[in-house]
């Protein structure tokens, strides 16, 4: 990374500085390492928000830059969460099982331990055997590889089929939505091997770690901030040169790019897969902070929210996606957490827990109609004013 690269991307420097400052501030005010002004549960909320910002920039790259409105990227996010969740749950349950068997006079056999873990995990769906897909759950390394590999390969196969047939525009959006819906419905089944609608739970407990949640939550916040920083720099570098030009060209006039000799499908497939992998990494960091993952997380509505965040924040600029995701998801937490004061109208009381979604929907429509550049567009206005002065 040369000096000129940094100089040419002042917003990236500002972003990284703000992210570092934010992380430092939360650390200083945290319960674990600081004054305790910021509660552990709020640290978790912020850590999760950073992960949502990361998946939002992936969404911005595929939609804002390449013009592919994927309504399925949350499927990759969820799959990342499931993959890390399998190891967390296996290892944690094993720990508990071993402790409970400690006092037995006859030491338990491997099979007995394995059966006990399986019963613990799968009893809830009426099974006591490990499904095949849990073969690697004992190994953190292998599951970490799967975090990247499973969503990556799914994106590759799905993308290859869709782009090769030149499915574009709204049809592609529908197709991606069908993909995430199908995946969610499959995972809802009890015999899918991932505990059906119960999902994977207790993910906030790290195996072999005795530190309190207040500390663990800080570790995840740091990891999430680092991942967001890396993701931001990675995409900025990728899109800054000729590759970014071609990608924007594909968004603006796909056919023209093709006649220039670029295999448009290869570019789309590459971006679809890379953004899916970044989404999966974000998910793998998110769900240990959330503590639970179930198939409802990857229903199409989640991916639609993702698009709404990016639209509200401002498409085609990475910081716009970050602003959108952070702003809307934190606001959503505030409104749905019951903290927002209800508005009594006499004949009817507006309760924000119910009406927040309406507000969000209306603001999405308004942004699309009147401020297509989203919140990020405000920065353009400021810049223009400065130039005029």
């Amino acid at each position, binding site marked *: 990374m040369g000096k000129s690269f940094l100089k040419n991307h002042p917003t990236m420097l500002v972003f990284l500085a703000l992210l570092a400052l934010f992380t430092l501030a939360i650390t200083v005010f945290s319960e674990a390492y600081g004054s305790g002004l910021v509660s552990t549960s709020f640290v978790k909320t912020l850590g999760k928000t950073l992960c949502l910002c990361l998946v939002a920039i992936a969404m911005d790259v595929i939609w804002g830059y390449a013009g592919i409105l994927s309504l399925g990227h949350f499927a990759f996010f969820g799959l990342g969460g499931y993959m890390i969740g399998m190891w967390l749950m296996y290892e944690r349950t094993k720990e508990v099982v071993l402790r409970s068997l400690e006092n037995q006079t006859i030491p338990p056999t491997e099979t007995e331990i394995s059966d006990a873990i399986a019963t613990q995990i799968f009893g809830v769906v009426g099974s006591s055997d490990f499904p095949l897909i849990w073969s690697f759950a004992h190994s953190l390394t292998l599951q970490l590889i799967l975090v990247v590999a499973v969503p990556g390969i799914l994106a590759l196969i799905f993308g290859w089929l869709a782009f090769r047939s030149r499915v574009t525009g709204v049809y592609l959006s529908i197709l991606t939505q069908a993909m995430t819906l199908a995946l969610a419905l499959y995972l809802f089944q009890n015999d899918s091997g991932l505990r059906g609608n119960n999902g994977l739970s207790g993910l906030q407990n790290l195996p072999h770690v005795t530190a309190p949640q207040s500390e663990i939550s800080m570790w995840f916040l740091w990891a999430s901030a680092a991942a967001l920083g890396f993701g931001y720099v990675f995409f900025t570098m*990728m899109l800054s*040169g*000729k*590759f970014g*030009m*071609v990608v*924007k*060209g594909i968004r*603006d*006039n796909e*056919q*023209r*790019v*093709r*006649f*220039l*000799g*670029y*295999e*448009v499908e*290869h*570019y789309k497939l*590459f971006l679809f897969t890379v953004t899916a992998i970044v989404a999966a990494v974000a998910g793998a960091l998110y769900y240990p902070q959330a503590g639970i993952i179930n198939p409802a997380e990857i229903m199409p509505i989640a991916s639609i929210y993702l698009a709404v965040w990016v639209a509200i924040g401002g498409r085609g600029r990475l910081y716009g996606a970050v602003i959108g995701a952070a702003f809307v998801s934190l606001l959503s937490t505030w409104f749905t957490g019951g903290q927002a004061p209800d508005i009594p109208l006499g004949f009817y009381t507006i309760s924000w827990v119910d009406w927040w979604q309406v507000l969000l929907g209306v603001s999405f429509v308004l942004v699309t109609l009147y401020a297509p550049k989203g919140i990020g567009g405000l920065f353009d206005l400021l810049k223009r004013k400065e130039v005029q002065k």
Partner: protein
Amino acid sequence: MSTLLEVSGVSVSFDGFKAINNLSFQIGKAELRAVIGPNGAGKTTFMDIITGKTKPDEGRVIWGDRSISLLGMSEAKIAQEGVCRKFQKPTVFEDQSVRDNLMMALKRGRSVWDVLKYRPGADNARLEQLADEIGLLSEFSRPSGELSHGQKQWLEIGMLLAQDPQLLLVDEPAAGMTPAEREHTTNLLVEAAKTRAVVVVEHDMEFIRRLNCKVTVLHEGSVLAEGSLDHVTSNQEVIDVYLGR
């Protein structure tokens, strides 16, 4: 003169309508050719077939010294082979600068990997030279969306030249241009045809006269006449279907 492109016996129909009917066409390696014909004669479909956008029902399209078939190749592969196309409406990437448009067109590796590791520094001189050729050096860093209609046309021609193609397909290059701009365009095309094949589709007879080249008249999807402009304009059939109206 050896043949660069040979189209023989090509037909294509859309929903029963025969857009191209047993069309044959040849062009040499350094030749300028004008293609004229009334609306619906199949001029654009003809270009679509050569560039791979439309697959013909029958016929052959043979290309280059190695006599390979262009049928069944993707648009991008055909473009990489050296067939480049300029559309009727100027289509440049409006969000991006003149320099970026030319850089994308410049003949360099087209794969994802090539493009990701591309470093622009080495090509700056070449890009400036290209911009100079098309008279846009002073607009080098401007977003191309801010250019005038004629300037966009030139930029697109510049993008074609940047690709260093063997065959240039140009659809109505003079549409909407001022007389001065037309002259500039004519010069660019005549200059280009010294080293490569150029096919110009045009309605404007005056423009074609200036090009001073062989003319192919299309009608109802096949070749009606071919020869010098004076030769085809004195052909009774051509007068009936095209000029006489």
